[in-house]
């Protein structure tokens, strides 16, 4: 019973993690870059939702498209403004650069909005929860889950069915070959960043419905996003999805097991530990993650 509840909660969280990681994995897939600033994109998405819903007095859900737009803009700006140059450097320089971007965005937010905690107080979903039989589910999380599904279907459709998608995949598999085939890889990269931005922006907009908004908030999610993407296999859409859910379940079910076993050694204090441990073990035995490809 408790276990079942934990399981469901876990899956819901999992969908959220998956949604957050989606952008990261798209960007990586196309250009082998881990974007440290991903969490900050999320944070800015949340602020967008907040500011708009306050200033326009509309329901935060309405602002989602705009959050996406802001995310896309952010992605494009950081690609053309920074990442384009980073690509010339080695991996260390790339990490360094996006790490700088992370710090910069975070403290830009501090500068602009100060360090107050903000929270969206009214809105369709805010504070609502859905009761199915014995289970109480946070309405926003349910919607998150649905949207996450939608996002994944749309993205995979774009990538696997459309011509743009083919171009994207070609670029990700072999940059030179792609450019010979007349694909403008520059543009593909930009597109990847835009897509990444959109997804994470929307995720932020949703998150704003039940999460507090704060300049440092990105930090909380970015590590999970990394673990998710890495576990699923860098660049793999499918991987991000299942890894996200797996992690969600792991971190909620694991402590409950401890609770059922009446032991305090297995408890929430280790919920993240278990996630990282899982990642470590998986990659040690499967160095490409669950669905990743050889690099």
């Amino acid at each position, binding site marked *: 019973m*408790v276990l079942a*509840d*934990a399981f469901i*909660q*876990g899956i819901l*969280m999992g969908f959220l993690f998956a949604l957050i990681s989606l952008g990261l994995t798209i960007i990586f897939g196309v250009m082998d870059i881990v974007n440290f600033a991903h969490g900050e994109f999320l944070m800015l998405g949340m602020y967008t939702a907040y500011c708009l819903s306050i200033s326009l007095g509309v329901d935060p859900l309405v602002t989602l498209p705009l959050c996406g737009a802001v995310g896309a803009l952010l992605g494009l700006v950081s690609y053309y403004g920074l990442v384009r140059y980073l690509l010339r450097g080695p991996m260390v320089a790339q990490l360094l650069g996006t790490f700088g971007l992370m710090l910069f965005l975070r403290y830009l937010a*501090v500068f602009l909005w100060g*360090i*107050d*905690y*903000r*929270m969206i*107080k009214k809105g369709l979903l805010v*504070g609502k*929860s859905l*009761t199915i039989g014995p289970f*109480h*589910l*946070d*309405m926003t*999380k349910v919607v998150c889950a649905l949207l996450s599904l939608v996002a994944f279907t749309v993205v995979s459709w774009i990538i696997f069915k459309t011509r743009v998608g083919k171009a994207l995949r070609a670029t990700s598999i072999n940059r030179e070959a792609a450019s010979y085939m007349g694909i403008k890889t520059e543009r593909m990269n930009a597109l990847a960043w835009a897509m990444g931005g959109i997804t994470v922006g929307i995720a932020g907009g949703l998150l704003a419905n*039940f*999460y*507090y908004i*704060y300049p*440092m908030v990105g*930090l*909380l*999610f970015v590590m*999970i996003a990394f673990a998710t993407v890495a576990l699923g296999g860098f660049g793999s859409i499918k991987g991000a999805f299942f890894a996200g859910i797996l992690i969600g379940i792991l*971190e*909620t079910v*694991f*402590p*409950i097991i401890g*609770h059922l076993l009446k032991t*305090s050694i297995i*408890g*929430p*204090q280790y*919920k*993240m530990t278990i996630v990282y441990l899982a990642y470590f073990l998986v990659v040690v035995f499967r160095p490409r993650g669950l669905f990743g490809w050889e690099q």
Partner: protein
Amino acid sequence: MKKGLFLSLLVLAVAMGLLMGPFTGGVPAKAKEIKIGVIYPLSGAFAAAGRDLRNGAELALDVLNNRYPELGISIAKWEGIPSLKGAKIKLIFADHRGEPGRGADLAKRLIMDEKVVGLMGCYHSSVTKTVSAVAERYGVPMINGSSTSPVLTKRGFKWFWRTTPHDETFTKDLFEFLKGLTEGKVRGVKAVPKEEIKRIAYACENTEWGSSVAKVIEQMAKEYGFDVVKGILYSAKSPDLTTESQALVAAKPDCMLFTSYISDAILFVRTLKSMKASPKVVWGQDAGFEIPDFRATLGKDVHGILTRTVFIPKVVKVKKAAGKINALFKKRYGTDLTGASGRAFVALQTWAHVLNAAGSTDPKAIQKVAKELFIPAEELIMPWGGVKFDKTGQNVLGTGLIGQYQAKGGKVELEIVYPFDLATADMVYPFTTWK
């Protein structure tokens, strides 16, 4: 291109140097000015608390250095330190970002370079540890207003005094309160059978502060005959607290006790509400549950939540001084005084009294008077018996308050429910907000 980059970097470096020049040397001390170093978490994850603390300290400074006769407390009349020919106090703020190591370095800077007479701070018990260790090493007095880890005054330091009561006192208050609940002492609630509130579950953030509180709770629960059915240490930086909340709910406790900073406190309330958790008592250990942001962000979801604190605006009903100062504070910063800002105020106030009594800035003299210092209750904005340090440097007259958030037509008030004789409203029991 590359040359340009190199140059611009060079320029930047030089610019840095120039900018920092004045700040490394430290401002030359002006006559008749007493420098107190104040180390707070002004930026980083705890900046919200830091700002609150800073406001409290700055208000106290203003009250001390200028004339506010209407306030009716002695420092308001002083315009500086009388016994030092009205010397003004100057606060030098430093930002430790919650990092013990950084705190220690800043303490050195304040002591050696700024030549401060004494130190104040640091909110985080972990930082207070390193900072007080530095103060001890250099023999500089430090008055701590808001770190509540019991061990701080159990280290036999000679230069460390703490005005605030510590977590043992606070936690004791809680259990006294629960006891009172079973004995019908609580205003507006008739005696509750102990069975009804026997099961306790706590969730404490897993750093210095939380984990030490957890220990105290365990031990007190035994003394007062409650059963701890679930104890959780969690990371305040965790992106979601679903798991923790579930573990709590699963244990079906009557009382949920929290030791949380602001972000996790907010998250807990949100998550537990979504799970329709139904404990009869919800109690928060100050900090997260008491910073204005908590109420501001969560609105009426906090109706009925108890928080231990040391200051509640309602205190004005029983304390004249508090009322006027709170009004002043609200006028200036837009929020009521809180435990954080209030205690910062008192800490500086204490500094003023100490210096005045000592009549000099010589550490030895300060140390001497600190031993027999007594600030009477009516001087304080806190509902304490006054300020009097025992030989460990702990203020023995400090007491805690337990307040309850009560939603009254749109706005949320924090009412006093403990000590029972100070109660300002009927307690809301049982807690039903999240149902």
